[in-house]
């Protein structure tokens, strides 16, 4: 019983981390039809810069932790907005070239990070509470998972509010449905592209800092390994569907944890099987629109 609780809660926490990455991918794809392979690079930079800031402050306190989260988010947003302006925008409407340029940037960024911070993991400090556990029905849940869940819930809530109640949010929802009609109402839809990149990048940057505390280290490969699962999640949830991404994040992570505990560490294989099953049964994903 306590193992089951542990698997469920850690699954939800890992899902929360996945969602921080997948939400941006999903928004970007939904509006721009670009699979952004550079998303992991945003995450990794957020993690490194967040750590660089933290180690110059008082490392193991909450205030340092929050500052590094803010810095990670800002760095992710800035890197993503720059990527959109400098690399994606000049290739307007050329989707294959846009995807290729994000692949190139992903490789280049990892090489750059290795050059600056080396190839070995850098172990980081967390506020002491995050390293402790909380007893839930006999299961000792590491507190990091609560932080992850809180962050993802806050992100989901702010995204929903942003999309529903702001003008840019309305433009983005309209653009996901019919982009040319948005321009035919006199709106420069490209500005919304930069905005979704910035939002996705900031979620990834925050995700990077949190991923560091989750794994206990930062490394040049942090983003790439999470990105693979995030892609699978966006496809399972339905490309372009934020709710789909949220549901799929938890589904994938819980299933992964289950398989890891009960089926001898086969979590990653199970995820690929789930992907295949969903693609066969519902090619557009759980909440995707058939096109």
């Amino acid at each position: 019983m306590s193992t089951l609780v542990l698997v469920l809660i850690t699954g939800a926490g890992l899902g929360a981390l996945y969602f921080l990455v997948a939400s941006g991918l999903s928004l970007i794809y939904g509006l721009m039809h670009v699979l952004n392979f550079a998303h992991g690079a945003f995450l990794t930079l957020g993690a490194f810069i967040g750590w660089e800031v933290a180690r110059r402050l008082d490392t193991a306190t909450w205030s340092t932790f929050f500052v590094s989260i803010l810095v990670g988010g800002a760095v992710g947003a800035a890197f993503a907005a720059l990527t959109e302006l400098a690399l994606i925008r000049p290739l307007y409407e050329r989707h294959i070239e846009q995807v290729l340029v994000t692949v190139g940037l992903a490789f280049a960024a990892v090489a750059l990070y290795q050059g600056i911070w080396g190839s070995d993991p850098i172990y980081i400090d967390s506020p002491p509470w995050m390293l402790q556990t909380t007893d839930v029905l006999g299961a000792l849940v590491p507190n990091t998972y609560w932080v992850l869940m809180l962050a993802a819930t806050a992100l989901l809530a702010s995204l929903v509010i942003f999309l529903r109640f702001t003008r840019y949010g309305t433009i983005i929802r309209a653009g996901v449905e019919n982009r040319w009609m948005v321009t035919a109402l006199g709106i420069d839809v490209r500005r919304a592209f930069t905005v979704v990149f910035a939002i996705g990048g900031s979620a990834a940057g925050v995700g990077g800092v949190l991923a560091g505390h989750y794994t206990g280290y930062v490394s040049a490969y942090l983003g790439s390994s999470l990105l693979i699962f995030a892609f699978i999640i966006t496809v399972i949830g339905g490309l372009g569907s934020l709710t789909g991404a949220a549901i799929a994040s938890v589904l994938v992570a819980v299933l992964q944890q289950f398989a890891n505990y009960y089926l001898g560490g086969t979590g990653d294989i199970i995820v690929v099987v789930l992907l295949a099953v969903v693609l066969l049964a519902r090619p557009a994903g759980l909440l995707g629109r058939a096109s």
Partner: protein
Amino acid sequence: MSNEPVLTVEALHASIAGQQVVEDVSFSVPPTGITALLGRNGVGKTSTLRAILGLISRTGAITLAGERIDGMRTHRIVQRGLGYVPEDREVFSKLTVAENLTLAVRQKSPRYELVDSLFPDLVARRSQAAGTLSGGQQQMVSLARALLNDNTILLVDEPTKGLAPKLVADVTVALEEASHLVPILLVEQNLEVVKKLAGGAIVLSGGRVVHTGVATEILADEALTHRLLGVGSATGGAAI
């Protein structure tokens, strides 16, 4: 009052996916009333409008109220006062009626009074998702989006397509009223509607302009309408 055309199109060529769909089209739209753009299905009427808006790649000279717009991007052209009501309505189906309208607003005091008086059906449906409206109501949303702003010209593409006769009449009345405020270039297959509304008419065939004149005179010429529009008195003249 000046009689300078509000919109002139010269030697317009446009292509979709490398295929030429508009070939050397030239015409001008007078600054008042409704001008009809006619022609059989597939002659390139919709493509002509989309080319004017820059939604498909085009060459040629397009002048809106004295200003060249053929080098501009779509949103700039619309901001210059060209309102567009596309074929098949193209409302944002997941957005509410209110959101569809707000998104279209480009000026400080939008003409909500006008829109509410023309389309009273929409008033009580502001918070309904546009995708759940009937085809006629969606057409009203699409027209309302253009009428909220003070435009220099409206391009309206087949606003009565697929509507029941009662709704065709409603839309006709709305267009008639709107035409007192803004000149309209109207693509319309329902020739009864054209007869009621249009002053001038431009007829396309095979991606080119083959005839220009007074709408009622063109429609009175049976041989011409049969040849160019594929209809004659025997078929009742209109696809109602």
